[in-house]
């Protein structure tokens, strides 16, 4: 539990609640003559969320906990994998499933642990080709397989 994170989320959810309440006001009021329009539910929920996040902020005032225990967090590995996953998402359609998946898996495997290129290549290749052929050819699903030249 970190106090700063709780404070941050408290404020974030407070703003989200406010956003929903304010935005609900621009939804038209009534549907087919019913007195209960589409705006009521989000408005009420937004108000509850505001109240709850105020309570969370209040709670963070109360507890004093400065845990000095630092965990060793591997940001670099995570960032490389996260960014390559984001790139994977972007190029999936233009580059096709097989190539993009293969490259992503290769990068991720090597990021997790250097070396053993042959098994990395084999597993990445087997997975990307295997899934594509099983899904698209055998099951008849649709996936963008290869880039269209």
């Amino acid at each position: 539990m970190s106090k700063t994170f709780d404070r941050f989320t408290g404020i974030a959810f407070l703003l989200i609640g406010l956003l929903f309440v304010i935005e609900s006001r621009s939804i038209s009021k009534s549907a087919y003559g019913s007195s209960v329009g589409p705006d009521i539910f989000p408005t009420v929920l937004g108000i509850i969320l505001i109240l709850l996040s105020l309570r969370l902020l209040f709670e963070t005032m109360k507890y004093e906990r400065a845990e000095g225990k630092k965990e060793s967090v591997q940001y670099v590995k995570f960032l490389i994998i996260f960014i390559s996953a984001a790139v994977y998402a972007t190029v999936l359609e233009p580059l096709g499933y097989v190539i993009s998946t293969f490259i992503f898996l290769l990068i991720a495997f090597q990021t997790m642990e250097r070396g053993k290129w042959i098994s990395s290549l084999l597993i990445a290749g087997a997975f990307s080709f295997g899934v594509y052929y099983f899904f698209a050819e055998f099951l008849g699903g649709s996936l963008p397989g290869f880039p269209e030249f």
Partner: protein
Amino acid sequence: MSTLDFLFNGFAVAFQWQNIMFAFVGVLIGTAVGVLPGIGPMSGVALLIPVTATLTSGMPTEAAAASSIILLAGVYYGAMYGGSTTSILLNTPGESSSVVTTLDGYQMAKQGRAGAALSIAAIGSFAAGIISLIGLVLLAEPLSKIALKFGPAEYFSLMLLGLCAVSGLAGKSMTKALIMTIFGLLLATIGIDAVSGIARFTYDLPILYSGLEFLTIAVGLFALGEVFKTILERDKEDGAIAKINRILPTKKDLKDSAVPIVRGSLLGFFIGVLPGAGATLASFFSYMTEKKFSKHPEKFGTGVIAGVAGPESANNAASGGAMIPLLTLGIPGSGTTAILMGALIMYNIQPGPLLFEDHPEVAWGLIASMFIGNLMLLVLNMPLVKVFAKIIQTPKKYLLPIIVAISFFGVYAVQYTTFDLYLLLACGVLGYLLAKNDYPLAPLVLALVLGPMIENNMRRALTISNGDFSIFISKPLSLAFIIAAVAWLVVPLLMKLKGRNVIVNDEE
């Protein structure tokens, strides 16, 4: 037709060759999911939805729904079986519902009785599966008959009760659990409003008109969140795996665990039926009960077989019990059943009291297939326990990237949008951060699935009453549900004020 006729027809559905295959694949993958640390039943079921959707694409809707729900439910209760394996062999639970199994299970393994512990866990799970199924068969019809009399007001209050129960028990801080619930409900309002057809919070982005896909959010929060956590905090390598010598339990083991199995099954079943209290809580209660009933309570924690048999039966029975509110009332009581419900809705089949009338083959086919699935699990687990123990050793460096790739494939194959892939990644980071700071994720997913139904029932009730909110407390049943909902939130608070420890339910 009587219940028995329906059950018979259910078996006819379950014995179709493709459904036997589906049940088999389901329990097999489920056991693997249970064994592998990092994927829980919730992400396992969510990841398989797109695969089943494709597998069943050629079939008529109802048969397709029956087949895929058979597979997905198989993953669910299969994972309960598999979860015990790592608890016993490695002292690291594969699922939160197997945490208490480590207490005595690992001790047994240290004494060289790993095989006995594993097989008792399998036998107990099997007995529990059968007992909870009998309960399901007996309770399903009468409950859905009662539920048919519910109006929108009753439904609204009942779903409110479900949400309150899950939030009241989840996580360490109720404020945080409630925030997650409300946040889930708010996310569910994004998209075109089903009643009036007005677009809400879409900002003219066509991608948002159909709302945020629950599958994407569930896979992101649970599967990717867990992967990110393991990448970031990958600490020590796992310890050595205990050896399995003799698989079959001795006669004394069987005798010692017979009563705990029955007790654990019954307890687990009733806890499972309650919304919010799932398998984790059931196994915990069972362990405490066994300790209380035992003649040598001081021996617990040193490798007593009752301490494995009871909780393992209880968590399996609870997963069977949890199907009851889902199938008869259409209200999931836990994160995993919420995802099962989402899968049924994808096939345009609404779980609830009408399920047994409108789609008997889906409802009874599922129940019958659970009989078969449990039998398969027993047959699979006894001889193959050593094989499953091998799965634990799958190196994480290959496993984690492949889980990411499967998540991408799963989401893309259903949604066909790059937007959902970005959403998936965002949810992964969010899931990691939230879970790390004690924000429970199950209420969010549950609220996301229940959100549209709660809103529609609320508005229908208010339309009937001309906007008068007193309709929710003037109907006796609805009032009872609301009182129960409030009690669920207030009682733990009062107990905390009194300084008592409240057992909380973890994610499952």
